[in-house]
């Protein structure tokens, strides 16, 4: 093994890759754009859609209610509801979003209330449809209010205190520091993005440097040089690793910049443009997209990702090396992406906690430990176990890459 040769191969591959548009896209441009796009694109669109849905005054139809004029009149007076005549096909109208909600007042509802019975009111909506759900909630708020007023009236009639029906109040308050809340909520998302970008960053250089070279006929030219095969593999592998790490680096830099610049930008425009009420919603959305994360945790994540990036680079290299052409390599590596994403997604699910067995599952362990570290929790024994096992997997993957490169039937596969 000669470092001079490894560095020579690496520097040439670096120069070559910097001139390859596809590699630049996957290692620099996409990682840089992904966070701002998520934040300003999807995040912004989501917050706008949500606040618009909240602002909309929903159309509500009343079924029955002819013998309950008082309640109907109150419903009509509610500024957050727009009472419309009941269409004949009201169920279809709700499904087709022409009507948001229908509320059915049973016969003799008002009279029943006065008599002290408990008639049931039915609210019909399109479950899962955002605006219909908001409308149902608005109707339910009205009904809850009506119920509470009725309770208060009945208690007053009997000369009983309000605490008779509401013996105590309660309130919820968060005591965890913001970085812990952020880490717990979004601790899964950051490693998830890192895992995806690390792999996609490795994918294109891996394909270009192996199957691509075979296809273009430069692999044979390179093998004619007196450099040992192991030096060629390591030089090329370092380039693939560079691709993987640069994808992660650019994503993190762009995330930092987005948080620094974008956070204030989003909340301020939110207040001025949509008004005070919507502004609060936008602020919340901005805070949720740009969570406060423990910076030390981020350093920990980077350290933990390093052996995983090595494993990705070596694995992508080995798989792509087997392919005869760039296209074939693509068809092998694209499904691998799903395998890579799965443990990362599982790691994002709530309720899955790190244990010794899960600490040995590649990628899932990274995803879980990152979530903990980003919320400022450091399980040193698990961290050591995960780092150690990741290094071992990385070493095995790299050894496999070197072995594959020495196989004639792989290099000259035709």
């Amino acid at each position, binding site marked *: 093994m000669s470092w001079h040769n490894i560095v020579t191969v690496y520097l*040439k591959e670096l*120069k*070559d890759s910097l001139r390859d548009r596809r590699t630049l896209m996957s290692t620099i441009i996409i990682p840089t754009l992904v966070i701002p796009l998520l934040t300003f694109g999807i995040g912004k669109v989501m917050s706008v859609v949500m606040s618009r849905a909240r602002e909309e005054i929903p159309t509500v139809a009343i079924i029955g209610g002819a013998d309950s004029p008082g309640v109907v009149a109150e419903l009509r007076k509610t500024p957050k509801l727009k009472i419309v005549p009941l269409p004949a096909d009201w169920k279809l109208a709700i499904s087709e979003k022409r009507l948001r909600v229908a509320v059915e007042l049973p016969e003799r509802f008002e009279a029943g209330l006065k008599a002290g019975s408990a008639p049931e009111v039915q609210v019909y909506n399109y479950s899962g449809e955002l605006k219909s759900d908001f409308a149902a909630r608005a109707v339910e708020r009205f009904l809850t209010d009506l119920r509470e007023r009725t309770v208060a009236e009945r208690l007053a009639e009997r000369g009983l205190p309000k605490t008779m029906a509401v013996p105590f109040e309660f309130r919820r308050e968060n005591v965890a520091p913001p970085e812990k809340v952020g880490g717990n909520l979004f601790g899964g998302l950051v490693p998830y993005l890192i895992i995806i970008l690390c792999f996609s960053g490795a994918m294109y250089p891996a394909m270009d440097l192996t199957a691509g070279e075979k296809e*273009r006929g*430069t692999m*044979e*030219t390179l093998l*004619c040089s*007196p450099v040992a095969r192991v030096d060629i593999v390591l030089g090329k592998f370092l380039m693939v690793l560079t691709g993987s790490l640069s994808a992660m680096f650019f994503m993190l830099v762009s995330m930092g910049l987005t948080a620094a610049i974008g956070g204030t930008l989003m909340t301020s425009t939110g207040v001025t443009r949509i008004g005070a009420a919507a502004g609060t919603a936008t602020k919340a959305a901005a805070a949720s997209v740009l969570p406060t994360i423990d910076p030390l945790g981020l350093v920990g994540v980077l350290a933990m990702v390093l052996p995983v990036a090595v494993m990705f680079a070596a694995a992508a290299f080995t798989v792509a090396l087997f392919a005869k052409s760039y296209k074939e390599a693509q068809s092998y590596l694209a499904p691998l992406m799903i395998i890579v994403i799965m443990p990362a997604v599982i790691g994002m699910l709530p309720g899955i906690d790190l244990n010794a067995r899960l600490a040995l599952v590649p990628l899932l362990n990274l995803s879980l430990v990152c979530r903990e570290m980003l919320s400022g929790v450091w399980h040193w024994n698990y961290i050591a176990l995960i780092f150690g096992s990741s290094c071992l997997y990385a070493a095995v993957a790299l050894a496999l890459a070197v072995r594959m490169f020495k196989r*004639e039937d792989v290099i000259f596969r035709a």
Partner: protein
Amino acid sequence: MIEAHHLTKTFKDKKRGEIHAVEGVSFRAEPGRIYGLLGANGAGKTTTLRMLATLLQPSKGSATVAGFDVVREPERVRANVGFLAASTALYARLTAREMITYFGDLNGLSRPEIKERIRRLSADLDMDEFLDRRCDKFSTGMKQKTSIARTLIHDPAVMIFDEPTLGLDVMTARAIVKFVRECRDRGKTVIYSTHVMSEVEKLCDRIGIIHDGRLCAEGTLAELRARAGEQDLEEVFVKIVGVEDAK
């Protein structure tokens, strides 16, 4: 000098079982001479040459190239070999100068040495005009010249050419043939594989006819003609290969 002793290469194929691409090939190519390896497509020429260039390992037999064993000292063999084949391409995104410099680096030359050799090769091959342009914009002729410069950067004692004129136009092919002759004149050991009879007649001092992985005849052009009792090389080839098939 190249000496091959019973070189054999067997591949395993899932569908066809064991394939004997080359079987017991022995020959000797000397400095200042061109040894021609003549054979049809699939006869085993490329596999033989790849074994000599240490791209493939022989299954059996041995060979020494410039005094080094192809199995035990593959890196030293490659340091003394210039390998040019139709299948050895250039890095499209590098310039000709970068490409040649890369191979100079890989051969352990110092940067001043590389610079000086590029200057001389560029003058010899008339490459000045496109030396700093990217290879993907080159004509076939420019590509061939750059490839030649790449094989010569470390001034190897042995040159291996595997069908170097395949798919080239007449003028470019002539330039290659001229270059091969120059290699011989400079005292290099040259081995040249082809299925083009006229190239063999023009170039080769000694010829080996390879068929179905075996070397079935060897000698100078005159010796082969006498053996087959034919003047035309194509007839000589068909007769020798035909006799082999009849066996």
